[in-house]
Structures are given as structure tokens and as C-alpha cells.
């Protein structure tokens, strides 16, 4: 789960980390008030779960509360990366001595957390990696041992710091690690971390993603976030509730399959035969008839769908249950477009028999099925 900058900073402060003075505003008036409270020049920042908001114009400086209100008004009307901006964060504009990059994420190859730091912050880590790879310091954390204070100091030293800054920056990394462990963080990035002219380290930006698989441990946090419903349409919301993976695309063929890899491969096959998918719908493993019917129902609600391709490779999922679900969907009148079915694996014969009795045709290979559904859409066009 991705947190907004201001939510991440609430957590940072709860762990004793320093952030610039300021607060969230949902209206220009609130922004003015926040800026007045700060009492100094401020920065007004769009709160969206998307990167590069700066380049999109979502970050603006203001010398007065009035100016802050004006910027807030503009930013609150924006969409960044297709997401509407519903709030801004108004914070003191810092007196910068140095911009630093700091992050912790999962290294899939080492299968350890990796701490990433650079004395050259302010740009994205990808740009930094391209422009000055030697300036990026990486330290892998042994999962059972955690980040040790001396390791944190070594990171700070390798990042080029000296004197008192070594221990102060090390303290920052130790806090960040503490947050990662306590909150099951999958990725956190502070870019920039600001070393102020008076020698303090403040998190000027904050990205924090919590491991979805560990959310069950953090119910209180999630409640406290008082999140408005996700930026999802009704179909996406429904699929999420059902635990299905559902993505809408620009084509016209809904692919309903079991397993992410198979669903992706099905989309690829449709494309290979000249078609375009409208829908990625992974039912997951072990679906029963009801769930299959529900999946078809959700897929049919998307206006772009001109044909449905059901591609099931039965493993935990039983073909008889899938067949029952399809028959039920047909019977209930859910399916108003051409339907192509390919279904093999566990209880294949029972499933095929059910389809046969209901007069629903099916195919044996995914290539045939992909070709068929593409030609059906072309015929219909």
C-alpha cells in the first residue's frame, strides 16, 4: 500500500524523525492558514501517489500565505499521472546546505533489504544511477541482525559526510530502518533529505509503501489513515473486494484466466493474432462456480468489451466448477457478447460435459482460442 507524502511524514514524526514544519490543506483557505502558521516562505506540494509531480507543476514555492493559497488553488485543480490532486502539503521552505537521497527497499537478488544513500539527492535514483553511479552507496541488511549503528555510520561516511554529520545522518538511517521493520515497509524513499544550513537533517519528501502481505499487522495504522475510497472505478473496486486482479486496457477482448502468468500470456497471444485486450482478469487459484460467474459479470460491465475469452488451465481450479460458473452466467443473461472458452486440466472431462450439455462450445488450446476470439471481434466489427 502506497502512502501519501503527508501520511508517511506522520509516521516519520511518530518515530522521532524531523520533517519541515507545516500541514495538509484541502482548500486554498486551509493552505493560507497552514502557510500563516509556518510564518515563513513555504512550499506547496500536490499530494498524489505518483512520481515526478515536480515536473508536472505540482510543487510551487510561496513567500506569503496569499501566494500559498493561489498555488494551492491551481494545484488542487490538477490531475497528475491521471490522478486528481485532492490535497496539498504546505511546508516551510528550508534553508538548504545539501540535498541527499536516502531510501530502503527490497533487493530481490540478494533477498535482503538494501539501504541506498547518496550525497547527490534531488533527482530520481534512476537518473542518479545513470549520471553518477559511483555516488550511490548501497548497504545490505542481514534480515535477522538488522542495521547496526556502526554500519549506519559507515554509510554516512561513504556518502561523503564527516564530523558531527556522520552520527546525525547515521541516526537518521537507524530511525528509517526502525520504521521499515516496525511498519513492514517494502520501499521508502526520502528525496531529498535536506541538510539545512544550521546542520539538521530533515525529510523534505517522503515515499513509503507498506508490504501488502503484512497489512494484517497494521490495522490500526490503516484505520488511522482514514483513506477515502481508492482511485478505483466500480469494477476495479468490485474485483479488489473479490480478491481478483483486474486491469482495464484499451482493446476490446476481455481475458478471464486463472493465474497472473497465464493471463499475461493470454493477452500476449491475443495480441499476436492481431487482437487487443480490454481486460486483464486473473481469477486466482481454486475459484468455484460462483466466483467464475462473478468474474464474468465484472468483466461485462466494462463498456469496451466486445468479446470474452475464458482461458483456464485447471490446477487447484476445477474445470467442472468453471463450467458451472459459465453456464450460470449464460443462464442469467450476463453475457451479451461472443464468448470463447478454452478449458483444460483438473476435472477437464466433467467440465467439458457440463458445457456440452448446456450447448456451449469450447476449445482445447489457448492459441486456437486466441485466434477464434480475435476473428469473432473482427467479424462483429
Amino acid at each position, binding site marked *: 500500500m502506497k502512502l501519501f507524502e503527508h501520511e508517511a511524514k506522520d509516521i516519520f514524526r511518530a518515530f522521532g524523525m524531523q520533517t519541515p514544519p507545516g500541514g495538509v490543506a484541502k482548500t486554498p483557505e486551509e493552505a493560507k492558514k497552514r502557510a500563516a502558521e509556518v510564518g515563513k516562505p513555504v512550499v506547496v506540494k500536490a499530494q498524489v501517489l505518483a512520481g515526478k509531480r515536480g515536473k508536472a507543476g505540482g510543487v510551487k514555492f510561496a513567500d506569503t500565505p496569499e501566494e500559498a493559497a493561489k498555488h494551492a488553488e491551481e494545484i488542487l485543480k490538477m490531475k497528475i499521472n491521471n490522478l486528481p490532486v485532492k490535497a496539498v502539503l504546505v511546508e516551510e521552505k528550508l534553508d538548504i546546505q545539501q540535498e541527499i537521497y536516502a531510501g530502503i527497499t527490497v533487493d530481490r537478488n540478494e533477498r535482503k533489504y538494501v539501504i541506498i544513500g547518496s550525497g547527490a539527492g534531488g533527482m530520481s535514483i534512476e537518473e542518479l544511477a545513470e549520471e553518477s553511479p559511483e555516488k550511490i552507496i548501497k548497504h545490505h541488511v542481514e534480515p535477522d541482525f538488522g542495521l547496526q549503528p556502526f554500519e549506519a555510520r559507515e554509510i554516512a561516511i561513504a556518502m561523503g559526510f564527516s564530523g558531527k554529520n556522520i552520527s546525525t545522518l547515521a541516526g537518521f538511517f537507524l530511525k528509517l530502518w526502525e520504521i521499515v521493520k516496525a511498519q513492514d515497509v517494502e520501499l521508502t524513499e526520502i528525496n531529498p533529505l535536506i541538510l539545512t544550513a544550521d546542520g539538521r537533517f530533515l525529510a523534505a519528501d517522503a515515499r513509503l509503501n507498506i508490504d501488502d502481505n503484512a497489512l494484517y499487522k497494521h490495522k490500526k495504522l490503516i484505520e488511522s489513515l482514514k483513506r477515502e475510497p481508492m482511485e478505483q472505478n466500480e469494477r476495479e473496486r468490485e474485483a479488489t473486494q473479490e480478491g481478483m486482479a483486474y486491469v482495464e486496457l484499451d482493446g476490446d477482448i476481455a481475458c478471464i484466466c486463472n493465474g497472473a502468468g497465464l*493471463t499475461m500470456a493470454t493477452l500476449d497471444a491475443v495480441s499476436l493474432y492481431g487482437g487487443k485486450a480490454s481486460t486483464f482478469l486473473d481469477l486466482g487459484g481454486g475459484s468455484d462456480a460462483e466466483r467464475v460467474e462473478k468474474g464474468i459479470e465484472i468483466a461485462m460491465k466494462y463498456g469496451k468489451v466486445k468479446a470474452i475469452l475464458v482461458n483456464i488451465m485447471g*490446477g487447484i481450479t476445477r474445470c467442472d466448477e468453471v463450467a458451472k460458473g459459465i453456464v450460470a452466467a449464460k443462464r442469467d443473461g450476463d453475457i451479451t457478447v461472443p464468448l470463447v472458452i478454452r478449458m483444460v486440466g483438473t476435472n477437464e472431462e466433467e467440465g467439458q460435459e457440463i458445457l456440452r450439455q448446456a450447448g456451449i462450445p469450447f476449445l482445447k488450446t*489457448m492459441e486456437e482460442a486466441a485466434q477464434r476470439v480475435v476473428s469473432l471481434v473482427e467479424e462483429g466489427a
Partner: protein
Amino acid sequence: MVVLVDKDTRVIIQGITGSQGTFHSESMLMYGTKIVAGVRAGKQGEEVNGIPVYDSVKAARDAQNANASVIFVPAPFAGDAALEAIAADLNPVVVITEHVPVFDEMRIIHAAKRKDITVIGPNTPGIITPSAKQKLGIMPGHVFSGGRVGLMSRSGTLTYEIAAGMTNAGIGISTAIGLGGDPCVGLTPIEAVDLFNKDSGTDAIVLVGEIGGDAEERAAAYIKDHVKKPAVAFIAGRTAPPGKRMGHAGAIISGSSGTAAAKIEAFTDAGVPVAEKPSDIAKLLKDVL
């Protein structure tokens, strides 16, 4: 020789009393897997599908001389179950459970590494050696036939799809390994390639990958430098739009690395032909064998 699992593998099922554990242990038994015990604290003395249940892995191992484990324990407790299996020196430890927190994954993987134990998964369909009639997992056994091609995959059903295609084409499998769909898994593609490369019962290797991460790119580079056996690959997600999360935690593309194009290029560069569609794997194998 076969990879990781052979006829002498004696399996325990952790979480055997749960619905998943009960269902799949029956299916494994029917396939031929030598399941010798189940584990569920507090249920010692009971039986599931005729398999005796013990309170702990150690008790099960000692009573039944077990040497491998398959874990169906729910996600919040799967990490602990795996650590218990590792502490009892079972090898391999197959973690079927999905949605295991990533920190738990890191812990079990490194606990296993310290003892030279192989963890397969989490979030894996498991491992199957058809010639030994040993299936440690949830895959439909009948789509896998015995033979001399090693198969590895980050995906579940897509693996069955490709195995079925191979079986239909008369190409048998030495061992098929579901590496697991999570960002952190116990056996990486490179490690799996290495196992197959050293296995005298394996003549060729099939790699099934998908978008996200750079594990396939790394495996391709490893093959280029270290592997003489022929290898072929399939990558799912050629048409996936960037930035969209498509089911697997792994299947998200960030930046240029991790795209299907990058992976296909890496394999091509390593002399590993990449199939356009799953059914082409069998054809490519016939070319290289």
C-alpha cells in the same frame, strides 16, 4: 540423478489439517508422493488421509524419518513453519503459501542458506519429478511426463500450460520447479539453472519468466557464461502496459529493466531462443535437442 526431489524423498505436510493441506495431500498421495507425516500443533494422534499427524516437525521427522516438507500454513504463520522445517534439517522446504510478508521471506531464505537447505517458494506451485512419481506441490500431476528436460518458472498455471504442451509433443520433464511468484524466493532462476546444468538426468532447460525484476536477465547472463546445455525460454507480459500491477507482486514494470523486451533481448543475446507463445516451447526444444 534428479534435481532436489527423488524417490527417496520422504515428505511431511505442515498445516495438513487445514482445507488446503488436506485437499492437496490427498492429491499428492494419489500422484504417488511419499507423504509420511503431517504436522499441526495440538493434533498429534489424529490422521488426515491416513497420514499420521504430529505436534511438531521434529516429532514428525523423528517418527517417520522424513527429509522434506511442503507447507500449507496460512501466511502469517508460514515463516515460522518454514523456520521449524529448516531447524529440523528438512530439505527441500516447499512453501506453497502465498501472501507471505517479504520480511519473513528474507528471514527463512537466509536461515536456509546458513544450513545449505533449499527453500522453494513462497507462493509456488511446488516441485515435481515425474519419473520418481514425486510431487511436492499443487500442480496437476497428469500434465507432467517423465523425461530429460528441466523446467523452471515464476508462474503457476502458465507452467502447467507449457508442461502440457511438452507432454503433448512427447517431450518429458526431469524435474519442474515453480520458483514462486514473489519478489523474494528461495531459489532464484540462476540457482535453478545451475542445478539443472549439473544434473546428469537433464539434457535441456526451459525457463518460463514474466515481466518485473531482472532475475531472467541475470539468468540469461549466467547461461551465456556457464551453461553448455541447450536452453529455451518464454516470457509472459509482452503486451502488459507499464506501471500496472498485474496479479503477481513481481509483475510490475518500473523503468526500462524488467520489461518483456529487455528479458527477450537478454535471452537472445545468450543464445537462448524465446518462444512467441507457450506452445512454441515444444517446437524450440525439438530444434535444440
